């Protein structure tokens, strides 16, 4: 049994939230550069150039990449041989979020859903737990902005709709979103499970680095095919035309019921902010 103090979790969460909102993942910056070189449209090239500059300015000035520093989403893998001392892990994560968003000058965007009263510290965070073997604690964080989150959709397809129905739905969601979610986007797709599981795995897929594919070859091929199809639509960076509508299409699957085929398309903006820490 390994003992971890909750204060250590709180501190690590605080650091990863601030770091994540300011320093863009290298894989995203590299993807901007690669796509800028491939673009034929001057407008698209220029926008991708601004996004590269934006990442540089954010790092130099230590200010957030985007004013919407999102809702804090976590995926936690907790070894079953750990004992957490002090607060519960949920409280520790929320305290870390609170300290990061207050002390780190990040925007507090979380409100009660109907009365719209701000919680003033960006809590509560959305936390997904998974118990695993061993004595390690893995915490992944993402700042999920709602310009893109608002463009996400779910559909309960019929089993007979099959793979063609899935492809059609993904393209429909991207087309309807158009310029709104700050393209170039990352398209997260969950297929299978139940309503809740499907949404959860679509979100999980957004935590990948650009260029990282599903380990299953069939799904990987589907990701590559869908990225090509999405980029043929012509929405382009910021919706002003071009080849770079998306940087990646990430798909996660889960077994489902004989009567159903749930699909969730969860869209992320180009400011794909995520960090991982292992304690």
């Amino acid at each position: 049994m390994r003992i971890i103090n909750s204060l250590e979790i709180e501190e690590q969460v605080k650091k990863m939230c601030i770091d994540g909102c300011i320093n863009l993942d290298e894989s995203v910056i590299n993807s901007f550069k690669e796509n800028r070189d491939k673009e034929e449209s001057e407008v698209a090239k220029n926008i991708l150039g601004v996004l590269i500059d934006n990442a540089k300015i954010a790092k130099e000035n230590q200010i957030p990449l985007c004013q919407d520093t999102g809702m804090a989403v976590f995926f936690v893998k907790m070894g079953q041989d750990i004992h957490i001392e002090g607060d519960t892990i949920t409280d520790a994560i929320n305290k870390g979020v609170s300290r990061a968003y207050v002390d780190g000058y990040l925007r507090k965007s979380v409100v009660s859903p109907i009365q719209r009263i701000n919680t003033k510290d960006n809590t509560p965070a959305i936390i997904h737990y998974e118990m695993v073997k061993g004595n390690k604690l893995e915490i992944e964080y993402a700042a999920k902005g709602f310009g893109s989150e608002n463009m996400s959709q779910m559909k309960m397809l019929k089993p007979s709709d099959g793979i063609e129905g899935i492809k059609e739905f993904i393209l429909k969601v991207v087309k309807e979103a158009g310029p709104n979610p700050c393209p170039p986007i990352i398209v997260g797709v969950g297929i299978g499970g139940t309503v809740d599981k499907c949404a959860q795995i679509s979100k999980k897929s957004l935590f990948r680095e650009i260029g990282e594919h599903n380990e299953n070859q069939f799904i990987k091929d589907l990701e590559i095919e869908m990225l090509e199809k999405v980029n043929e639509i012509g929405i382009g960076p910021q919706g002003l035309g071009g080849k770079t509508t998306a940087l990646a299409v990430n798909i996660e699957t889960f077994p489902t019921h004989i009567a159903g085929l749930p699909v969730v398309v969860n869209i992320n903006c180009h400011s794909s902010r995520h960090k991982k820490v292992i304690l």
Partner: protein
Amino acid sequence: MINLRLPLSEEEVRKLKAGDIVSISGTLYTARDAAHKKMCQAIVDKKELPFDLDGKAIYYVGPSPTKPNSVIGSAGPTTSYRMDDLTIPLLKRGLRIMIGKGKRGQKVIDAMKEYGSAYLVAIGGAGAYISNSIKKCQIIAYDELGAEAVRKLEVENMILTVCIDSNGNNLYDISCK
């Protein structure tokens, strides 16, 4: 590149065409979801608005908090369609320029044609980059709304693209064809 200094007359705004790249300097006002709701309610209640809308520009932004010794935090555009239901009363009052990102509804576009306004887009997510063009920032109303409070901004050479002009031409439709 077209240089514009705010405020603008209807005549000046009617000259702008979808696809024009403009550099804006002068005074802008920020207002997003909750501030729009309050302003529309003030118009219904015949109460004073935080600023006179005639000839003015509204930037849809909820900046991140300002660090010590800085003018403003990260300040990129928010998605504009959420303001659609609350835009027409402001256009009637002479609002000339709206700055945001993403699509607008047909009713708003029709009202822009009628009253003579243009919709300009900034690069979504480029909040750190855009904040460099903001030289002054002061909260002038609805302080209790936090990030959504109404701010008066002084900007220099803020680079924007005319997306929908006062004839209803829409760059999003033109570019994707």
